[in-house]
């Protein structure tokens, strides 16, 4: 194997957040009868289908992409897939209600948690394609609860759709290096990290990924002008929404460029109208990532004393804002409770995250990283739950008596750092252990008193005036076991 050193360089652009990149490439397969599976072995593909998008290299090193080289259960018409994601996490705050606040990956402290159980796969016959991935486990409630578009109208969209993480059908055109047209619920790929945690360098991502969409509901067109470039426009209901807030749909696009095996550039850009009763408030978001593998030598480690066989990093930056109906992107003159068109309040999202990963052979990897977010107006802050919830409560959960304020005119700054090890005994199994520190400039994370009731149970009466225990820091350790076929 050759030793490879890549050149560092800067990448400037807009940013947005996203999951599974390999999945995108797989979903874009221009040969419908071939396995719409994770990244195939590059040597095999080079002989069989040289023009297949992104098949010229082995991209299994990427953060947010599959590290599997083949789909073990593949058949001619259907490529089954199954993911089991179990975690155990503990916070030094040790909330008495075992509840995690402020994450879409973690939900319960001090308990073994089946975060995600999904089964499904890719259907492919001639030029017709479809994908189904179910979603059982806590994520089926943890993620949809952030979608307030479902409060509009009837038929309980959250109940109807929460158990589907991906569900779309479409058609493949043999144009350029392939064009796919799909309709349904698909992964957003905003924020670099994959919604499928098996594909990530770390289990709990930084805010740039955690607070941006995991899925979209609508239509996407994946266009591959070359085998190194994907341009994917979307027409969708909204920003990680099952339904639509106003009249207009959301529009966006992903541009993915991988000129070399060691380099991946991705940009996700979005425009929509995602605020209840504010049809004049437009949301813009841009998310840009670069991933560079700057050392790769499976047989000759980096140094005698440091036997790294592969080293890579990722950098992601996001810029977003809302404008209109009482808010403005920057330098607003208004304040909470008095955000008007004459005196609008500042409402934007600025964030970044960076990760560095070192592989020791194929079975061990160490990753460290961190990031920050600045979100005045809090329109992308994940709503706390329980008594502090500003969003409607599930059935049988008492109404929130002290909701966290998500109004225009508020402020929110947060940052985090983390480090973790992954042990990957096979391509189908990952064990993950990591430590994470999160901090905010306002009380936000669950403190020891929790957010549920004096003893942490929803059945215990809540005294009048009882406040949830929100604190500014959260230190935790995370264990996870992820299996994917």
């Amino acid at each position, binding site marked *: 194997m050759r030793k490879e050193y890549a050149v560092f360089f800067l990448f400037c652009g807009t940013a947005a957040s996203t999951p599974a990149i390999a999945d995108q490439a797989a979903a874009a397969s221009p040969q419908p009868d071939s396995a719409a599976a994770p990244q195939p072995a590059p040597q095999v593909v080079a002989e069989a289908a040289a023009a297949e998008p992104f098949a010229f290299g082995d991209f299994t090193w990427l953060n947010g992409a599959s590290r599997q080289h083949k789909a073990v259960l593949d058949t001619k018409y259907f490529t089954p897939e199954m993911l089991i994601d179990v975690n155990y996490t503990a916070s*030094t*705050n*040790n909330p*008495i209600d075992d509840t995690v606040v402020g994450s879409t990956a973690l939900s319960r402290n001090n308990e073994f948690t089946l975060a995600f159980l999904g089964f499904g796969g890719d259907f492919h016959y001639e030029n017709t394609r479809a994908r189904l991935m179910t979603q059982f486990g806590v994520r089926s409630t943890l993620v949809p609860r952030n979608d307030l578009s479902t409060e509009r109208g009837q038929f309980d969209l959250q109940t109807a759709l929460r158990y589907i993480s991906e569900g779309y059908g479409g058609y493949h055109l043999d144009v350029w290096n392939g064009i796919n047209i799909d309709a349904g619920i698909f992964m957003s790929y905003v924020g670099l990290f994959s919604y499928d945690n098996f594909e990530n360098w770390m289990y709990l991502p930084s805010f740039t990924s955690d607070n941006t969409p995991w899925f979209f509901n609508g239509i996407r067109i994946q266009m591959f002008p070359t085998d190194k470039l994907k341009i994917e426009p979307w027409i969708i209901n909204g920003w990680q929404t099952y339904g639509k807030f106003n009249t207009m749909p959301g529009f966006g696009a992903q541009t993915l460029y991988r000129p070399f095996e060691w380099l991946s550039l991705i940009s996700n850009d979005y425009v929509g109208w995602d605020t209840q009763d504010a049809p004049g408030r437009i949301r813009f978001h841009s998310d840009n990532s670069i991933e560079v593998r700057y050392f790769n030598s499976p047989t000759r*480690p980096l140094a*005698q004393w*440091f*036997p*790294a066989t592969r080293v890579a990093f990722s950098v992601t930056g996001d810029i977003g804002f809302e404008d209109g109906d009482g808010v403005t992107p920057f330098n607003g003159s208004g*304040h*909470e409770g008095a955000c008007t068109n004459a005196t609008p309040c*500042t409402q934007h999202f600025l964030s970044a995250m960076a990760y560095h990963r070192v592989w*020791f*052979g194929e*079975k*061990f990897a*160490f990753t460290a990283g961190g990031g920050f977010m600045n979100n*005045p107006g809090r329109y992308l802050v994940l709503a*706390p739950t329980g*008594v*502090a919830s500003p969003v409607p409560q599930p059935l049988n959960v008492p109404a929130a008596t*002290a*909701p*966290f*304020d998500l*109004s225009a*005119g*508020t*402020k*929110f700054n947060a940052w985090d750092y983390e*480090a*973790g*090890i992954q*042990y990957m005994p096979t391509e189908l199994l990952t064990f993950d252990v*990591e*430590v994470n520190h999160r901090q*905010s400039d*306002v*009380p*936000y994370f669950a*403190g*020891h*008193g929790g*957010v549920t009731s*004096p*003893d*942490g149970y929803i059945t*215990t009466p809540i*005294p*009048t*005036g*009882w*406040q*949830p*225990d*929100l*604190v500014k820091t959260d*230190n*935790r*350790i995370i264990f996870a076991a992820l299996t994917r076929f």
Partner: protein
Amino acid sequence: MMRDVMMKTLRSAGLCAGLMLGLGGLLAGCNEGKEGDRCNPYLPPDDDECNSGLTCQSSPTCPESFCCPTPLTSSLNPFCNGSACPPPADGGSS
């Protein structure tokens, strides 16, 4: 050769594991039980979460429970002596 690589890999993994455990150790101490910390008032006295000399109780002015000394008036902590209660779950505005 392969054996050397394996050994080095295992050594590196061990180093990383040690680092992780060290970091985990730093995080190990829980933020609870000190004077003025929130606590569960429904636990039996023998299972009280509070540190020695403190018990889980509420001041007359706050509905929440805190680890406090007895009598409450002997405490300088505002949540124990009743001079303050936790602020509403807002987080503050600009």
